[in-house]
């Protein structure tokens, strides 16, 4: 995937377009503007206001510092600021999707993290001889978390699982190097059981 075209495709397929957030933001703005426009039109046509006429709204805005209840005005402002902050964060953060790029010569290949996780879990099941339910794999951008629950009395070396997981991940040829973390969870033996 060395060509600019495929690099662009990879970039677009591994990052969120933020279309939904933009849609919500624009719709909110359109609704607010439409309401203001409607009130101005009603006022120009000497018709009763829908909620608050432009003159009354202007007066309320000027007297905002003494508006009651003050707590409600502050709460409304905080909510507005928070929504704005969320939109800003969504606009500037990369919005990486939970996908990995695989090296595939001249082709661009993107695989959902869930596919990698289930394949790795299946491979570890075959390697360790445990049941599929005893192995949980979580794949992130930089790390792969493997949790193994071998049950009481079943010997299992963490280093072996780690080596098997890393060897399998190598065969997938992920474009980004990931760190593998293995956790062995054994149920607590109940010594006080009679």
């Amino acid at each position: 995937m060395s060509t600019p075209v495929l690099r662009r495709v990879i970039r677009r397929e591994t990052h969120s377009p933020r279309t939904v957030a933009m849609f919500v933001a624009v719709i909110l703005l359109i609704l607010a503007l439409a309401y203001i426009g409607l009130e101005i039109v009603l006022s120009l046509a000497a018709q009763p206001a829908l909620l608050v006429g432009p003159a009354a709204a202007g007066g309320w805005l000027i007297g905002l510092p003494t508006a009651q209840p003050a707590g409600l005005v502050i709460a409304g402002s905080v909510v507005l600021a928070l929504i704005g902050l969320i939109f800003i964060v969504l606009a500037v953060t990369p919005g990486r999707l939970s996908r990995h790029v695989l090296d595939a010569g001249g082709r661009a290949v993107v695989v959902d993290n869930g596919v990698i996780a289930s394949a790795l879990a299946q491979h570890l099941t075959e390697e360790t001889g445990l049941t599929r339910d005893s192995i949980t794999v979580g794949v992130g951008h930089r790390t792969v978390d493997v949790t193994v629950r071998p049950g009481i009395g079943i010997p299992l070396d963490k280093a072996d699982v780690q080596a098997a997981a890393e060897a399998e991940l190598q065969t997938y040829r992920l474009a980004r190097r990931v760190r593998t973390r293995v956790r062995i969870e054994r149920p607590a033996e109940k010594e006080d059981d009679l």
Partner: protein
Amino acid sequence: MNNTNRALNRTLLLIIGLLFLALGALGIAIMSWPTLSDIWAAAGENARSWLDQAIAATAIAGGGLSWIGIGAVVAIVVVIVLLILALTSIAGRRSKTVLRSTGAQNPLGRVTVNESFVSDAVKNSLTTRDEVLSAQVTANDVRRSPVLHVSVTPRQNTDPRELVDHVDRLLANLAVLTGRDTETFVSVHTSLRARLAHDQRRLS
């Protein structure tokens, strides 16, 4: 893949976010900072008297209408129209392309292969495999060059490398057949269907 203008998405999101944040911060500041409250009230009164004068000066034929009010409505309508245009221009516009590969002239004639042949050939070949739940092949235009998109949803526990290698071989064979190796993007997905489906095909 679609041609959504992502820069426009993020720019609009940033502008609206800054607007909301500024309004919210202003509300908090004037409610909790007495100096700013006084400045706000004084500026508001000045603005109101200026606006009253402006409305009186631009009144139409001495009636209740004023050019200021009409101008404000027109400005709001223009902004709303621009926002709606932005919405319609970015909402999932797909750039379908017709992939056409024309072979060299030979004594028997010329063979032209189009997108639907490539799409059906790859799709049919993939869906015969046990580990593939569904496959979709489309051709899109990216920077004016055709890109084939092969989207595969395998059963759970399928080795992604084996699947990708298979798709790669398939496309290489097809390229030999059609005489054209189109740039290809392969995406391997998981879905609710993949999670619910059995991890092996039932034979009966």
